[in-house]
């Protein structure tokens, strides 16, 4: 993830530590410039202000500033749309501590941890098979085939599960056909776990694959030569060697599932209110409690930042960016 300047076009000697206000002087312009574009090029086209300015301003105005704004209004207790507000205070954050909202946060965590664990359990064998056991010739194609569903709308993939899990859906048709009792999973947490696992399994496989692909096969061969059983090889070499990849993939899936909105809404019904749905309701629902919704958003951002900090500390970031 680190981009060293020495990696890119100019050797360090040419780097003159330009600030945003002083464009780098062209070290390499011995040729006479003919057109106006060439004459302006070093200063305007390629200057740091042109390169970094537009995107920077955009992110600053439409992301950083708005985030600071919701931090501010989260500190105005009881702020509602169209109502005069009082002074600053921690009322909105204290409101989160009410049992009814703590249950929502707890439920979000259970959804996230549970579906991350399921993704890991189901994804690891797939990534292992793809990276180490699949026919070399088809390996890339097989990997692409597994993550292909990511290219389709997440909304429609969740909707597909509603047609499967409905009481009169495909699943129950199959279950009754083989003589098993019908299940009523739609609008229960079970459906949320299925939907979240389905949605994020390809990410898990992709990152684990990138990690397993780098595994040094010679280590496994050496261990086998020295008499280790396949089970010992797996637990003493494969798993420890890919632990950073496992950590990165798990934290990424955890972050995504923690804040997912579509799956709990479409598959979980009223019983599966999670933090994203709660925030959504504060703004687009009937309550219009913007202050409280902003406080919830700040808590969510904080939780995700913590997970990212763990990722940077323990995870293999290169695996993520490569994937």
């Amino acid at each position, binding site marked *: 993830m680190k981009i060293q300047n020495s990696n*890119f076009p100019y050797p360090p000697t040419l780097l003159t530590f330009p600030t945003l206000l002083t464009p780098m002087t062209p070290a390499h312009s011995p040729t006479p410039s003919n057109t106006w574009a060439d004459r302006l090029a070093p200063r305007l086209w390629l200057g740091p202000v042109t390169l970094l300015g537009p995107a920077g301003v955009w*992110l600053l105005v439409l992301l950083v500033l*708005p985030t600071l704004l919701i931090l501010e209004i989260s500190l105005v207790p009881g702020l509602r749309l169209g109502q005069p507000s009082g002074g600053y205070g921690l009322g909105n954050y204290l409101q989160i501590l009410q049992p009814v909202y703590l249950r929502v946060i707890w439920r979000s965590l259970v959804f996230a941890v549970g579906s991350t664990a399921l993704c890991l359990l189901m994804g690891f064998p797939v990534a292992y098979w793809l990276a180490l056991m699949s026919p070399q010739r088809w390996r890339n194609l097989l990997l692409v085939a597994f993550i292909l569903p990511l290219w389709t709308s997440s909304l429609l993939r969740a909707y597909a599960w509603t047609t499967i899990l409905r009481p009169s859906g495909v699943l129950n048709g199959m279950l009754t056909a083989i003589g098993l009792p019908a299940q009523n999973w739609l609008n229960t947490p079970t459906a949320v776990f299925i939907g979240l696992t389905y949605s994020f399994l390809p990410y898990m496989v992709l990152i684990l694959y990138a990690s397993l692909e780098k595994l040094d096969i010679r280590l496994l061969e050496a261990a086998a030569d020295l008499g280790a059983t396949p089970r010992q090889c797996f637990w003493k070499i494969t798993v420890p060697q890919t632990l950073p990849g496992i950590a990165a993939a798990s934290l990424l899936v955890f972050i995504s599932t923690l804040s997912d909105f579509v799956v709990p809404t479409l598959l979980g019904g009223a019983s599966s209110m999670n933090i994203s749905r709660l925030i959504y309701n504060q703004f687009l629902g009937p309550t219009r409690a913007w202050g409280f919704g902003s406080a919830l958003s700040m808590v969510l951002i904080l939780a995700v930042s913590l997970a990212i900090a763990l990722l940077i500390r323990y995870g293999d970031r290169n695996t993520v960016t490569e994937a």
Partner: protein
Amino acid sequence: MPSRPVTWPSLFTALMYAFMYFPIIVLGAYSFSDSRYSASWGGFSLRWYRALFSDRRLLAALQDSLIIAIVAVAISAVLGTLMAIGLARYRFPGKGLYRGMSYLPLIIPDIAIAVATLVFLASVAVPLSLGTIIAAHMVFCLAYIAVVVSSRIQRLDPNLEEAALDLGATHTQAMFKVLLPQLAPGILAGCLLAFVLSMDDLLISSFTAGGGANPLPIEIFSRVRTGVKPDINALSVMLILGSALLAGIAEYVRYWGDRQRQST
């Protein structure tokens, strides 16, 4: 590795492939079923496809989504690429902060971005419209494009552009004839990713749409919330075919990029 008989990882993997494709196959099958209640097969029919193509509202929503995605991605392609080049080329005070900011859209959950954008737009009293959705989508589009282009820059041969300058190319020539052609596969891959994310976005659109625009995910969401809609099955099949095409293009771009890198 010797070819062994069927092992449990390969069996399990086959099962997982079935798991990934089962819902898609179910949608596809029922889109051709004549029955309104998709529990039972009602015989082969194209009626849902006919219904789909005569559904003005849905087609208008698709049009809105395409406009948003294409405009947002086109502008972001320029801004994101410039940002990636700038980050690779310059050192300046606060660069760490700038880079951190460029990762924010990838890190902050969609719902929080959506909320923040809505509050911001309300506070500066900008009326919500197609334009506000595009502006909001550009935030994550340019961040994703910049990340993909950055990883491409990292793997470039650093000497080529310098060689061009040594051989008398102007900075403009070096940029357009040496750097950009090498970055093209990365830019295109980033654009495809951003396009798919923009077409798929529900939350940020919902919070920045107002009454003026109605992109496809919002329309689909409001329909499927209230139960199964057979014409949505048909729409899913069309969209899945579209995404398969995009994925195919993306894979080709990656192959092209790898080959280009090997040949340089």
